[in-house]
């Protein structure tokens, strides 16, 4: 892990500020994040279409339950790009062995219902601890930021629903003749209408890079604080400059002595 190659500013942050930084990171890698998300989510979406009965609530439940799985490629991709390692879209997909299976059973079972999952997902994916190590790591890393990580999940859940609601309102505004707000319409919307469900899937994908990146930045900024990355980077840069100056200084001195030698 080369700390110097981090693309984000390393300093001690509050949890809110870490979340904000996560949104900046999410924006930077947004498009590739959305596509990665869809690469995993779309097959699952199709499966739920074909396997379960129409009209059942099960497809939605499965999609929602698998959200941590869909976020994994984004997290893997971010974890490499954050240290300036060019990962990109295709290479992330090609490296699916590194992010698809490790710890998957955990994050889709006991760790699924955690409201702070965005912050803890990097522990499972990147550190791959066994279960006792995990709870230790989670309490060391997460304890302090648990409340903010919870609010992150709450807010992003609402943002997702609001985007959906806003699209419905837009439809009604722009096509008032075709769409009338009524209970019948809402029933139709919630009754496994494929187009509606695809729109909802896309909204999920649009939000996911921000949510994943914010959770990841909570994790990273806690590690910066716990392990003194900011100090280490500053000291290392300083020593690089210092050695360069020393070398230059010696060069000057030796040239001077040579010249003096020549004068003599």
């Amino acid at each position, binding site marked *: 892990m080369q700390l110097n190659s981090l693309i984000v500013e390393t300093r001690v942050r509050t949890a809110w500020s870490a979340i904000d930084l996560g949104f900046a990171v999410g924006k930077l890698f947004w498009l590739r994040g959305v596509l990665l998300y869809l690469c995993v989510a779309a097959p699952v979406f199709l499966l739920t279409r074909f396997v379960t009965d129409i009209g059942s609530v099960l497809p939605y439940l499965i999609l929602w339950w698998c959200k941590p799985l869909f976020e994994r490629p984004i997290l893997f991709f971010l974890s490499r790009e954050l240290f300036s390692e060019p990962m990109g879209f295709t290479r992330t997909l090609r490296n699916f062995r590194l992010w698809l299976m490790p710890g998957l059973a955990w994050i889709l079972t006991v760790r699924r219902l955690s409201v702070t999952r965005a912050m803890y997902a990097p522990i499972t994916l990147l550190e791959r601890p066994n279960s006792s190590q995990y709870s230790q790591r989670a309490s060391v890393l997460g304890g302090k930021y648990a409340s903010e990580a919870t609010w992150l999940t709450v807010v992003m859940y609402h943002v997702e629903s609001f*985007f959906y609601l806003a699209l419905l309102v837009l439809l009604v505004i722009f096509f008032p003749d075709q769409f009338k707000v009524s209970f019948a319409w809402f029933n139709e919307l919630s009754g496994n209408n494929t187009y509606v469900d695809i729109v909802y899937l896309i909204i999920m994908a649009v939000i996911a890079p921000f949510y994943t990146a914010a959770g990841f930045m909570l994790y990273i900024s806690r590690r910066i604080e716990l392990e*003194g990355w900011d100090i280490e980077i500053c000291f290392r840069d300083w020593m690089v400059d210092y050695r360069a100056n020393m070398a230059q200084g010696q060069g000057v001195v030796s040239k001077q002595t040579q010249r003096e030698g020549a004068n003599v």
Partner: protein
Amino acid sequence: MKLDTVALVETPEGTDLHAEVVGLVPRALAYTLDFLIRMGIIIVLGIVFSFLGKAGEGLYLILFFVLEWWYPVYFEVFRGGQTWGKKSFKIKVVNDDLTPISFGPSLTRNLLRAADFFPAMYVCGCISVLTTSRFQRLGDLAAGTIVIYEEEERYVSHSLDQVSAVAPSYPLTEEQQSAFINFALNRGRMSRDRQTEIAEIIRPRLPLNATDAAKYARGVGKWLLGAR
């Protein structure tokens, strides 16, 4: 240039001012808190004015209007850019040159809430905050304002009681000073081994008699915090 959430402003005098801008999550929560406070007041007022008949109804509607549109303006102009919600999250509104917000910009940004609200539940404002580099909603863009974190006093110096202050023997840059200070405060509770590991990096710059690098670095940090 590393990615950060800081707004930099260069003044005519040539000094750089910077402040951390506030992103979507804390802003949404501060807004929600303000909203709940306003709703609370409106419900209480509704109960009180319901006893006053038609006149009460009229007065109630006027008060509702005032509260809905002027509550943020009042707080931003007269209470240092902070509504109650913003205050509880330690954030405030300022002009984008970091000067205190005045009446005009405050009115602009709050009247444009309507644009941010479109088409429902502040979705346009949300998209704007997510996509602009200084996390501004549409009202902020129009009024030239940003929302920043209040400067916080983050030092707890009693953790340094056992450290004796050491004056550094050479000038330090601003980054190096804050690195020493952060080292001394040890906010992340680094283990002794990790502290030594980091402090040993600057071994070439340590005085020859400093055998314990970590102790020396902590001492410099304490000195930089003002202890002598």
